[in-house]
C-alpha cells in the first residue's frame, strides 16, 4: 500500500510524459493513456477496499517526519472520492476516442497527455497531507486545464478562458497568502499538525483563517457569489473537456473545503457556510432555468449542486458531512455523464441550442435513456444515486433542525427537475426542426461514445445499488473527519 499511494500520483504524470513523447503515434499514445487511467482507477478501488478494512495509509515521502517533509494520507474520504474521480476520467477517455471521428473532437495529441497530468494533479489534491502540496496540486490541475480549455483557439474559448484564468489565478494568489498566514500563526502547513495547533489559536485568528480559506476554496468550487467564471467558460470547451471539468475541478475545491474546515474544527463557520450553500443552490438553479442551451443549463446545475455539498459541510454533524461525502461520490460521475450526453446531442444537431433541436427520442431512443437516467438521478428521484445522497442530506438537515436550508434544498430539487424537463421537451420530444437530418458522425464513433456513456451509467446505478455499504463508508469517513485526533495520531505516529 505504501507504494500504491504515491504511484497513483506519479504514475499518471510518468504516463503523461510517455504519451507526450509518443503523441504522433496515435495508437501507442491512446494505449498508454487508457492503460494508465484503467490502472489508476483499479488502484483507487484497491485503496478503498484496503482502507475500509485496515484503516488509513500514511506515506512519508523520502522518509521525512511530517514536521519537515511531505506526507500522503489516504483515508476513507480521500480514497472514495479518488475512486469516483478516476473511474469517471477513464469513461471520458473512451468517449473522447469515439468522439475523435466527429467535428467536435478536441485535439487528440494534446488531450491524452493533459488528461493524465490532470488526473495526477487530482490524485495529489485528494491524497496530500499538507496544504502547500495541495497548492501545488491545484496549480498542476489549473495549468493543464488552461490548455485543455483554450487549445482549439476559437475566439469564444479564448475570451471566456480569460475569465477562467483570471478568476483562478486570483484564488491561487489568495491561497498563497493564506498559506503564509497559516505558517506565520502555527509554524506548519501539515494538516495533521494544523488540526492540533489551529484550535489553540485565538478565536479571532481561527475565524480569520477559516474565512480566508473558505473564500479560496469557495472560488475554486464556484460557490456563491464567485461562480460566474464557470458557466461562462465551461460550455465553450470541447465536450470531453467540459465533462471532465464538470466532474472534477469544482469538486476538488469542495473536497479541500471539507478537508480543511473539518480538520481545523471550524464549526463556528457553520451558519455562514449554510447561507452560502443556500444562495449557491438557488442562484445555480435559477440560472439554469433561464438558459436555453443544453451545455449552459448543465453548467449552471454544477453550481447548484455545489450548494448541496456545502450544505452537508455547513451542518457540521456526522450525518451532514457523510451526506456531503456521498453526494460528492455520486455527483462526479453523474454530472460528467450528463455532459457526455450533451455532447452527443450537439453531435446530432450541430448545436446544443434547445430551439434548434427536437424529436430525438423517436430517432435515438437509447440516447433518450442515457439522458433520462442521470437527469433523474441529478434531480434526486428514487431509485437513483442522487436520491440516496439528497435524502441523507435532507435527513441530516432535519436532525440538525436547520429548517430553512432543508426547505431551500427541496425547492431547488424541484426546480432542478423542471430544468431537466426543459431539456427533455426541447431536445427529445416535439418535431425535428431540420428538413432532413444529416449524419454528422459515423455509426462506429457513435457506438463507442454510447457504450462509454452506457458503461458509466451502469457505474452510477451501482452507487444506488451499493448505497448501503457506501453510506456506511461515508459515515465512517465523516466520523473521522469530524474527530481529527484520529487522523493526527495516524499521521504523526
Amino acid at each position, binding site marked *: 500500500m505504501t507504494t500504491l499511494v504515491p504511484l497513483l500520483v*506519479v504514475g499518471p504524470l510518468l504516463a503523461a510524459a510517455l504519451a507526450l513523447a509518443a503523441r504522433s503515434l496515435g495508437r501507442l499514445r491512446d494505449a498508454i493513456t487508457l492503460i494508465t487511467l484503467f490502472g489508476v482507477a483499479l488502484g483507487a478501488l484497491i485503496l478503498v477496499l484496503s482502507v475500509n478494512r485496515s484503516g488509513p495509509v500514511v506515506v512519508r515521502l523520502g*522518509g521525512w517526519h511530517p514536521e519537515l517533509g511531505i506526507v500522503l494520507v489516504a483515508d476513507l474520504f480521500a480514497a472514495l472520492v479518488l475512486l469516483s474521480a478516476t473511474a469517471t476520467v477513464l469513461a471520458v477517455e473512451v468517449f473522447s476516442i469515439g468522439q475523435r471521428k466527429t467535428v467536435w473532437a478536441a485535439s487528440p495529441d494534446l488531450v491524452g497527455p493533459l488528461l493524465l497530468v490532470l488526473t495526477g494533479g487530482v490524485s495529489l489534491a485528494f491524497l496530500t497531507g499538507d496544504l502547500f502540496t495541495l497548492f501545488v496540486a491545484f496549480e498542476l490541475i489549473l495549468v493543464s486545464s488552461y490548455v485543455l480549455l483554450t487549445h482549439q483557439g476559437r475566439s469564444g474559448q479564448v475570451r471566456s478562458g480569460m475569465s477562467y484564468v483570471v478568476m483562478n489565478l486570483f484564488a491561487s494568489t489568495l491561497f498563497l497568502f493564506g498559506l503564509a498566514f497559516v505558517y506565520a500563526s502555527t509554524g506548519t502547513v501539515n494538516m495533521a499538525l494544523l488540526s492540533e495547533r489551529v484550535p489553540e489559536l485565538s478565536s479571532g485568528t481561527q475565524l480569520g483563517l477559516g474565512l480566508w480559506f473558505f473564500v479560496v476554496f469557495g472560488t475554486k468550487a464556484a460557490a456563491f457569489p464567485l461562480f460566474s467564471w464557470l458557466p461562462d467558460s465551461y460550455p465553450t470547451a470541447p465536450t470531453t473537456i467540459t465533462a471532465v471539468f464538470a466532474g472534477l475541478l469544482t469538486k476538488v475545491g469542495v473536497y479541500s473545503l471539507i478537508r480543511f474546515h473539518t480538520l481545523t474544527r471550524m464549526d463556528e463557520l457553520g451558519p455562514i457556510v449554510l447561507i452560502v450553500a443556500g444562495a449557491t443552490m438557488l442562484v445555480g438553479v435559477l440560472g439554469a432555468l433561464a438558459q436555453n442551451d443544453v451545455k449552459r443549463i448543465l453548467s449552471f446545475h454544477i453550481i447548484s449542486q455545489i450548494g448541496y455539498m456545502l450544505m452537508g459541510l455547513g451542518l457540521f454533524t456526522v450525518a451532514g458531512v457523510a451526506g456531503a461525502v456521498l453526494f460528492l461520490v455520486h455527483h462526479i460521475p453523474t454530472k460528467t455523464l450528463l455532459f457526455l450526453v450533451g455532447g452527443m446531442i450537439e453531435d446530432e444537431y450541430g448545436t446544443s441550442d434547445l430551439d434548434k433541436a427536437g424529436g430525438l427520442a423517436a430517432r435515438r431512443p437509447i440516447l433518450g435513456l442515457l439522458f433520462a437516467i442521470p437527469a433523474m438521478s441529478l434531480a434526486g428521484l428514487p431509485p437513483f444515486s442522487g436520491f440516496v445522497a439528497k435524502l441523507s442530506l435532507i435527513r441530516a438537515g432535519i436532525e440538525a433542525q436547520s429548517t430553512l436550508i432543508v426547505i431551500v434544498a427541496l425547492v431547488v430539487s424541484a426546480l432542478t427537475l423542471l430544468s431537466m424537463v426543459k431539456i427533455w421537451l426541447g431536445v427529445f420530444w416535439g418535431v425535428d426542426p431540420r428538413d432532413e437530418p444529416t449524419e454528422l458522425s459515423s455509426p462506429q464513433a457513435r457506438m463507442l461514445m454510447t457504450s462509454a456513456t452506457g458503461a458509466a451509467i451502469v457505474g452510477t446505478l451501482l452507487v444506488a445499488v451499493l448505497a448501503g455499504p457506501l453510506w456506511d463508508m461515508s459515515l465512517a469517513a465523516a466520523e473521522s473527519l469530524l474527530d481529527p485526533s484520529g487522523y493526527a495520531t495516524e499521521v504523526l505516529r
Partner: protein
Amino acid sequence: MIRSTSPVAELGVRAATPPALMVGMFLFFAGHNRPGGGFAAGLIIGAVVALRWMVGLRTTVVPSQLMAAGIVIVAGVALAPVLFGSVVLDQAVWSTSLPVLGKVKAGSAAIFDIGVSAIVVGLVIAVIDGLSPATTSAPEGQSS
C-alpha cells in the same frame, strides 16, 4: 523581431549567453543547501533561450520531448528507491574526496533537479514556440 536591424543586439546576446548559463549552473548546484535549485536554474536557462530567440537565434530542441524527458527523469528518481525497498522520493547521498575540490557530496536529488530544469526549459521553449508568428495560426472565424 530585431534581428535584421541590430547586429549589436545579436552580438550582445551571444556574449551574454555563457555567463548567464554560468549563473544558471551556480543556482543549480547552490540549490542543494541554499536558495536556488533546478527550478530557478531552469528559469535562467529558459530566459537565455528566450533572449536568443529575440535576436533570431532559434533552438532546434522539440519542447514536448524535452518536457517528456524531464518528467521521466523526475518520476524515475522518485520511484527508484522503491526498487531498493525504500519509500518513494528517498534519496541516496555519496561523498568522496577529490584532489582539488576537497570533500564532494553528491545526492540523487541532483538528478531529480536535472529533470525539473528540463521541464522548465521545455515549457519556456513551448511558450515561445506558441507565441512565435511562424507557428501561430489565425483564429478560426466566428465560432464560439
